[in-house]
């Protein structure tokens, strides 16, 4: 059984192996697909598809195979269980047969033994008669004696119901014998020995020899005088008995009591014969015959009573001497079924007897076999079912997998489509929205009543919100579709921060908050990165802070990560008490404690900065506010898009909740991390890190030389605020000292030491120390008329304007409005120091000083078929000091740009009749390459001897600034693109990209 099972399990195992191999193949195939990345995308996709298809087909085949295997399994196991049933039931039958045989043999043996005992006794009786009847004369035995003796010794012959003795009488002796006995010899009726009564018995006809019964037990007294030789059976018995000298049995016949019985005949000899005596000697010697009636039925019944379990078997005893056996015992209903035959030997060699044994009860159902085989088949079916279920499940999973793959593909396609749709739609919405907003602006300028104005204002505010939302969605879509690329241009982070502060000036003053920026000295002046995106992140954070802060301050700090690491411990100690505005803030350190960068720091020692490239620098930028904070339960979803702290927040503060999510993405793009710490009703601190590149140090534009010789003193009782002021002053090149204690300062002044030319006093300090202020002012003013220090009052927006103006008027102070920015500070200082403010700052393209410095004296060619555009573009570039040449077609541009030429750059319109900008650029590049090759070969035309390589920067001018155009620009080897009409910052960015690098090369 187990063997077969093992045999069955073999193929299943093989199949599993095959499947595993298939999987391995699949995995291998995928690996092969993944590894060679430069493989053409289409090709790999097709391979993948074919592979999947094959795999699918293969799985179909395997499935078919599995079904057959399952069927085979069930069939084989059914057969096996049948075998089990058969084997076990036959085993049971065998056992039963053995039991029957042993029982039967036991009974036969006992029967035989009992019979033999009776026979022996019969023999003893024969000897008794021989001794006391024949050997004595006159005989010692008469009928009475015999009958009494036989009766009394009947217990020794339990099987014999009666004994009789017949004497041998020859014909010659008959008359004498009849006279002696007093009766004549009578004849028996054939086999009916007992039936005739004594009256009607016929006299025996004459014969050679007679064997009349002379003695009989009382029960059989009537047989006396009957000649045994006249009955066929008896005669035969008598003859055989005297021949063999042994007890001889008759065939069974019915006794008087309707039972079956046999008669055993024993011969009495005249003398003792040798055992090897011949038959005729024995015949000669025979003198009489002893007959015993055996009641076989009683005998067997008695025997069976003695044995246990007699009920369980049925015994039949047969005389099998003749062909057809004669039943001697047992019911005639033999029935069918199992039968065991044991031979009986009753000591008569010429007669054969057999005992047939049967179980009375029908054989019981072989329950064990049935249950075992049934159990086996159930188990097999269960296993089959499990296998089937597994296979079905696998098939289902495979199908599901296929379906999932399909759905995934579709979902991905849908996602891409969504992003594209978003990008396109937002772009499309922006254009008309600008129209709407412009119109609303104009509508506001017309004559409106208050209600109308209110409506228009609301409409405009909504429109602006919508535009910013669209911009944000566009950003999100770009980030999601992976189209957002960061720029890498040199920029000054301090200026960016100043710009952001300017942006929020109005709001901060409106709300009366203090807004300050501090950039650490260790942050390089020029960094390379994406200023726009950094500005976006910081603007978002600061905007949020302002939105949620009603009192206190917002403090933006920029530091190098290493710096933060080193002063971490100091920072924690000074919490709460010495913040910018004196309000408690959330623990800044908590906001970055989850950053991987720092965790790595904490675990390893200081050397861990080694892996960062020497050129890159990690900045950590924090925005700290004293606002409402974020509820703890909402802190987990702060960075989830469109999630706001609660519905009421959206209602009160507006916004989409997308800003932080975008910021997080952008920070991620800058290889940084963003985190926050927030305490409800105390404030929040958002911190992010960004990895930027160090730019090569260039001349510092903001550090104007005007302030180089000037010392300043900052009086502020809040050290952090004083630090901010110092930072701004130092950016202008002013040497700065800090004082927190005014009294100390005044006493120091009394000593006559040299002091600063500029004194900046925070308004809060002024109010706090108002009693000593007049004295200070007087002292400062009185000292020396010519070189009296200039006094500045740092105006805090929290204070009411009135009181400060009152102070400033009273003491003739210069007021500097916070938030402090370098440019503003510069203007204020200049004005105070009596210099004319030469730099006239205006927004937009015109007057952008940096652009002027870039484009000054540059030879630029402008190509546009539209003369109006040409004129305007030329005019704008001329404004920055560039020398502009105009060309109204692509062809003209090509002739002008035929190397060698003296142009530094070319602005090229894209859409032109005859030859568009892309085509013209391509041709120019071909010309340049040609020249470069000649230069390499050394065929240098005299005009360009000092040039190694020609490549004129060409910028596209286009009205639609979209991604596709940009890519096409790069494809046609243009260097960038600017919008038309020019937009200040973009123009600067693009121009700066190649002019600065150009300058560095020079």
């Amino acid at each position, binding site marked *: 059984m187990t063997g077969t099972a093992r045999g069955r399990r073999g193929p299943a195992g093989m199949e599993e192996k095959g499947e595993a191999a298939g999987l391995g193949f699949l995995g291998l195939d995928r690996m092969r697909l993944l590894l060679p990345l430069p493989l053409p995308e289409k090709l790999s996709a097709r391979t993948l598809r074919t592979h999947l298809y094959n795999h699918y087909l293969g799985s179909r085949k395997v499935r078919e195979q599995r079904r057959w295997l399952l069927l085979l399994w069930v069939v084989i196991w059914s057969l096996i269980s049948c075998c089990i049933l058969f084997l076990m039931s036959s085993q049971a039958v065998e056992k039963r047969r053995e039991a029957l045989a042993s029982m039967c043999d036991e009974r036969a043996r006992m029967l035989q033994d009992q019979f033999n005992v009776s026979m022996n006794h019969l023999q003893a009786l024969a000897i008794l008669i021989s001794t006391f009847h024949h050997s004595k004369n006159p005989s010692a035995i008469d009928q009475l004696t015999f009958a009494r003796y036989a009766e009394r010794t009947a217990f020794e012959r339990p099987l014999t119901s009666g004994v009789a003795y017949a004497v041998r009488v020859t014909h010659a002796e008959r008359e004498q014998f009849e006279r002696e006995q007093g009766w004549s010899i009578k004849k028996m009726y054939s086999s009916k020995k007992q039936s005739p009564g004594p009256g009607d018995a016929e006299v025996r006809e004459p014969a050679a020899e007679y064997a009349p019964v002379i003695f009989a037990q009382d029960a059989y007294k009537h047989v006396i005088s009957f000649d045994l030789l006249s009955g066929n059976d008896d005669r035969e018995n008598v003859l055989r008995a005297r021949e063999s000298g042994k007890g001889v049995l008759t065939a069974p016949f019915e006794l008087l009591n309707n039972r079956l019985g046999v008669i055993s005949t024993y011969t009495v000899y005249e003398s003792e014969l040798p055992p090897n005596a011949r038959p005729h000697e024995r015949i000669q010697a025979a003198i009489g015959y002893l007959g015993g009636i055996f009641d076989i039925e009683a005998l067997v019944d008695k025997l069976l009573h003695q044995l246990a379990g007699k009920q369980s078997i049925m015994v039949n005893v047969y005389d099998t001497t003749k062909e057809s056996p004669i039943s001697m015992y047992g019911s005639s209903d033999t029935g069918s079924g199992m039968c065991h035959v044991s031979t009986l030997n009753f000591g008569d060699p010429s007669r054969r007897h057999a005992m047939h044994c049967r179980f009375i009860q029908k054989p019981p159902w072989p329950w064990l076999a049935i249950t075992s085989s049934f159990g086996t088949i159930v188990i097999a079916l269960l296993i089959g079912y499990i296998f089937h279920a597994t296979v079905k499940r696998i098939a289902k999973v495979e199908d599901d997998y296929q379906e999932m793959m399909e759905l995934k593909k579709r979902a991905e396609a849908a996602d891409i489509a969504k992003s594209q749709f978003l990008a396109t739609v937002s772009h499309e919405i922006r254009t008309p929205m600008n*129209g709407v907003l*412009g*119109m609303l602006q*104009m509508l506001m*300028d*017309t004559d409106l009543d208050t209600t109308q104005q209110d409506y228009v204002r609301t409409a405009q505010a909504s429109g602006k919100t919508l535009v910013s939302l669209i911009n944000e969605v566009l950003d999100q879509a770009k980030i999601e579709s992976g189209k957002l690329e960061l720029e890498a241009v040199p920029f000054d982070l301090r200026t960016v921060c100043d710009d952001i502060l300017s942006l929020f000036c109005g709001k901060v003053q409106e709300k009366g908050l203090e807004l300050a920026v501090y950039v650490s000295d260790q942050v390089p002046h020029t960094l390379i990165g994406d200023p726009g995106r950094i500005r976006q992140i910081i603007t978002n954070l600061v905007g949020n802070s302002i939105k949620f802060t009603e009192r206190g301050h917002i403090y933006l700090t920029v530091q190098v990560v290493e710096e933060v690491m080193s002063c971490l411990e100091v920072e924690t100690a000074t919490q709460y008490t010495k913040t910018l505005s004196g309000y408690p803030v959330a623990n800044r350190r908590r906001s970055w404690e989850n950053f991987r960068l720092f965790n790595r720091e904490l675990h390893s020692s200081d050397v861990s900065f080694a892996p960062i490239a020497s050129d890159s620098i990690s900045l950590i930028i924090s925005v700290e506010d004293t606002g409402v904070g974020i509820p703890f339960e909402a802190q987990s979803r702060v960075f989830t898009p469109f999630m706001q702290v609660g519905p009421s927040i959206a209602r009160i503060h507006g916004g989409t909740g997308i800003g932080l999510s975008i910021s997080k993405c952008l920070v991620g793009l800058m290889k940084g991390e963003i985190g926050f710490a927030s305490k409800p009703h105390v404030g929040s601190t958002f911190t992010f890190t960004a990895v930027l590149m160090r730019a090569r140090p260039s001349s510092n534009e903001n550090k104007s030389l005007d302030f180089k010789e000037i010392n300043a003193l900052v009086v502020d009782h809040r050290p952090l605020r004083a630090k901010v002021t110092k930072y701004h002053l130092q950016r202008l090149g002013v040497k700065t000292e800090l004082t927190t204690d005014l009294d100390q300062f005044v006493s120091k002044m009394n000593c006559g030491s040299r002091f600063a030319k500029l004194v900046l006093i925070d308004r809060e300090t002024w109010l706090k120390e108002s009693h000593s202020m007049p004295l200070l002012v007087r002292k400062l003013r009185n000292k020396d008329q010519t070189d009296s220090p200039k006094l500045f009052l740092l105006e805090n927006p929290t204070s009411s304007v009135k009181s400060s103006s009152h102070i400033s008027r009273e003491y003739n102070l210069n007021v500097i409005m916070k938030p402090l920015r370098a440019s503003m500070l510069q203007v204020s200082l200049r004005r105070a120091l009596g210099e004319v403010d030469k730099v006239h700052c*205006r927004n*937009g*393209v*015109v*007057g952008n000083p940096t652009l002027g410095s870039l484009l000054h004296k540059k030879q630029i060619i402008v190509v*546009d*078929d*539209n*003369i*109006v*555009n040409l*004129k*305007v*573009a030329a*005019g*704008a570039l*001329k*404004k920055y000091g560039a020398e502009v040449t105009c060309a109204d077609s692509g062809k003209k541009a090509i002739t002008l740009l035929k190397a060698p030429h003296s142009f530094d750059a070319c602005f090229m*319109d894209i*859409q032109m*009749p005859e030859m568009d900008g892309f085509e013209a650029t391509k041709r120019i590049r071909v010309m340049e390459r040609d020249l470069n090759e000649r230069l390499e070969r050394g065929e240098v035309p005299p005009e360009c001897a000092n040039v190694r390589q020609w490549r004129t920067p060409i910028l596209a001018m286009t*009205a639609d600034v979209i991604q596709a155009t940009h890519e096409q620009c790069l494809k046609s080897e243009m260097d960038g693109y600017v919008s*038309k*009409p*020019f937009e200040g910052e973009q123009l600067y960015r693009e121009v700066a990209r190649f002019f600065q690098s150009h300058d560095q090369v020079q």
Partner: protein
Amino acid sequence: MAATPMNQLSALVNNMFATGLLDEQFQQLQMLQDASAPDFVSEVVTLFCDDGERIIGELTKLLEKSSVDFDRVDAFVHQLKGSSASVGAQKVKNTCIQFREFCQQKSRDGCLKTLDSVRTEFYDLRSKFQTLLQLERQIQGFYPK
């Protein structure tokens, strides 16, 4: 005070901004005018007016034909759009955008309709520009550099 050319000029320009004829690009143009290019605005505006008149003439001719060459119409409209964008003629520019859409749809009726509005807007603008230039000349006459 109300009658001085300076005030008239600023009133006119303000009005043009307010009615949406011009956008901030025109301010940029004005900023570009300085000592090195004293007549910059008038030069550009004159160029724009002449160019625009020519283009509108061409467009009228093209659209009168039985079979309209929409590609050429589109090219002209694009040119006019570019010019008006450079000058800051916002209204004309926006109408041109509309015009181009009709061109792409190859709808002659739409083109004719927008051409009419472009023409009206352009001539309206041109008359205002002419007044503006006249006033500027007056101012320069009064305050010679």
